[in-house]
């Protein structure tokens, strides 16, 4: 028998995207309740829920909100990150389609607690249909007096804010919060240096908070049930429910809302119906393509929350779980991931711009059977030289999976090597600068 799990972000209610249906199921009551509290009380409730951001970094949401300056006349903004470009991640679009008003309500609560002027919801360009669906929901909310000037009389307060939808145009990097802000401002999506952090200097130089769509959509249920109650769901260190997007070699791929800390094997075998053909699992990426993989033989006791996954050297990320069966060519998968990051590197920082290209090329020759013995170590050396040396985390995101796959499946990489191939360093001076001495090759 299947266990019943709580569903609070994507409840099983038909037509919930319509405002009448949403209202009939307690819709906008959390906002009404929150707007009668003081802003600090709202933030404290979110802190008590121990909610951690669902965009990948798992930063405590209440704490992030409390960083926003209080005594300032400057307009303050919220940017809601619906760029959702991480390969393996396809959860936010379910919220736009099935529960958009809960996201809008969450924005209002966030807006009130930080006294914001407006929120911009950044949705990736490929989601044409979902941009329209969400814009329709926003228009509906305006027409019903829940957003904008009219919300003052609806909720009986002095607070009002606006919500705007902004459509991206195909750039993975814009999921990075400072890049997203540049993109919103009409610039190329280049990440900005931090500090200053967005809470001080964000959109149009004003204090800004950036939250993931799922994070904001989780706020109304938290206000309804109370932070302490919410914190009891799932794993204590990373509580709540998460939208797991499961793809790859499983019988029933899809988005499933489940409590954190659920065993990975339950997720794959009970919820997603196991692996087609009853094949063995070779590898699982637990949180989108930038997270290091798990080996099939180490998933036995893995629990799906940030604190548990850390013990295995990986992270929950965006909870995009990619399952690979025993026949998967790991080196080819690594190449595909490396190629993606090469394509998506914005080109601002040299280690990432050049390094991702090198990794792409080296992996191409390994897959083609033209790699040398030294190539595997060269890849690791490049990872070391990218990670931590770039403005934003795309560099790390490119390095982690390559290093992770080599560390866990080194034998597969070495099996691809052509023994007779001798690496010739084209530039000896450059070769000597590398930390790995043995990278200077004999001719």
């Amino acid at each position, binding site marked *: 028998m299947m266990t019943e799990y709580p569903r609070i972000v994507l409840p099983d209610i038909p037509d919930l995207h319509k405002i009448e249906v949403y209202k009939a199921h307690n819709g906008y009551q959390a906002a009404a309740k929150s707007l009668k509290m003081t802003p600090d009380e709202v933030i404290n409730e979110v802190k008590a829920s121990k909610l951690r951001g669902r965009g990948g970094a798992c930063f405590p949401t209440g704490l992030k909100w409390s960083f926003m300056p209080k005594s300032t006349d400057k307009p303050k903004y919220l940017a809601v990150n619906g760029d959702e470009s991480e*390969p393996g991640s396809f959860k936010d679009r379910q919220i736009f389609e099935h529960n958009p008003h809960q996201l809008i309500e969450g924005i209002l609560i966030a807006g009130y607690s930080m006294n914001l002027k407006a929120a911009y919801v950044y949705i990736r360009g*490929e989601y044409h249909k979902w941009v329209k669906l969400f814009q329709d929901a926003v228009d509906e909310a305006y027409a019903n007096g829940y957003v904008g000037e009219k919300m003052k009389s609806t909720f009986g307060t002095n607070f009002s804010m606006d919500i*705007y939808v902004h*459509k991206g145009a195909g*750039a993975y990097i814009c999921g990075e919060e400072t890049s997203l802000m540049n993109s919103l401002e009409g610039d190329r999506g280049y990440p900005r240096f931090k500090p200053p952090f967005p809470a001080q200097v964000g959109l149009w130089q004003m204090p800004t908070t950036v939250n993931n769509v799922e994070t904001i959509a989780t706020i109304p249920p938290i206000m309804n049930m109370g932070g302490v109650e919410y914190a009891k769901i799932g794993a204590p260190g990373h509580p709540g429910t998460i939208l797991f997007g499961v793809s790859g070699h499983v019988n029933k791929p899809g988005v499933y809302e489940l409590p954190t800390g659920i065993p990975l094997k339950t997720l794959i075998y009970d919820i997603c119906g196991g692996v087609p053909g009853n094949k063995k699992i070779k590898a699982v990426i637990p949180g989108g393509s930038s997270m290091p993989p798990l080996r099939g033989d180490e998933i036995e006791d893995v629990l799906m929350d940030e604190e548990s996954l850390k013990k295995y050297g990986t992270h929950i990320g965006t909870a995009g779980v*990619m399952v690979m069966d025993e026949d998967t060519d790991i080196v080819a998968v690594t190449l595909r991931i490396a190629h*993606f990051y090469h394509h998506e590197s914005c080109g601002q920082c040299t280690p990432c711009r050049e390094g991702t290209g090198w990794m792409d090329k080296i992996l191409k020759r390994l897959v083609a059977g033209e790699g040398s013995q030294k190539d595997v170590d060269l890849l690791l050396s490049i990872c070391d030289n990218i990670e931590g040396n770039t403005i934003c985390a795309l560099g790390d995101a490119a390095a982690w999976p390559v290093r992770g796959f080599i560390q866990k499946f080194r034998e597969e990489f070495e099996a691809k090597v052509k023994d007779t191939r001798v690496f010739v360093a084209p530039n000896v001076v450059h070769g000597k600068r590398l930390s790995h001495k043995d990278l200077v090759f004999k001719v």
Partner: protein
Amino acid sequence: MQIEFTTEELQEVQHHISKYPEKKAALMPVLWMAQKKWGWLSQDVMHYVGELLDLPASHVEGVATFYTMYFKKPMGKYHIQVCTNVSCMLLKGKELYDYTSNKLGLKHNERSEDGMFSLEEVECMGACGGAPMIAVNEDFYEYMNNQKVDEVLDNLK
């Protein structure tokens, strides 16, 4: 070709400008409008958008060329996008791309001579649960195979 928005479209441009504290931020939405109207962003179109928003042509071009979804050359009436990223690749997305490429006789970012089709090998579109997937213009088609690609493409003609 006369490059100018109609009066209604100019009102829409004004609406986009009104959403942001600075005019420059309306650039992406207005580029989307321009691409919808003219099919792609020629240099003339980019310069026109720049004039509308008081932005230097270099800035408009810089932005338009940064984002892959703004077309810098004419694309087909039906722009076929096939995902080959990890989740799709695991379920034969690359083979599906090769099949589509052979069927259309087109390579990555090429357009057929009659202007009907163009093909793009795209990065993850966020439909991993329906892998392998393709998109035709703005519509997603999930759980694809060669036969289904035939059905979708043949119905477009």
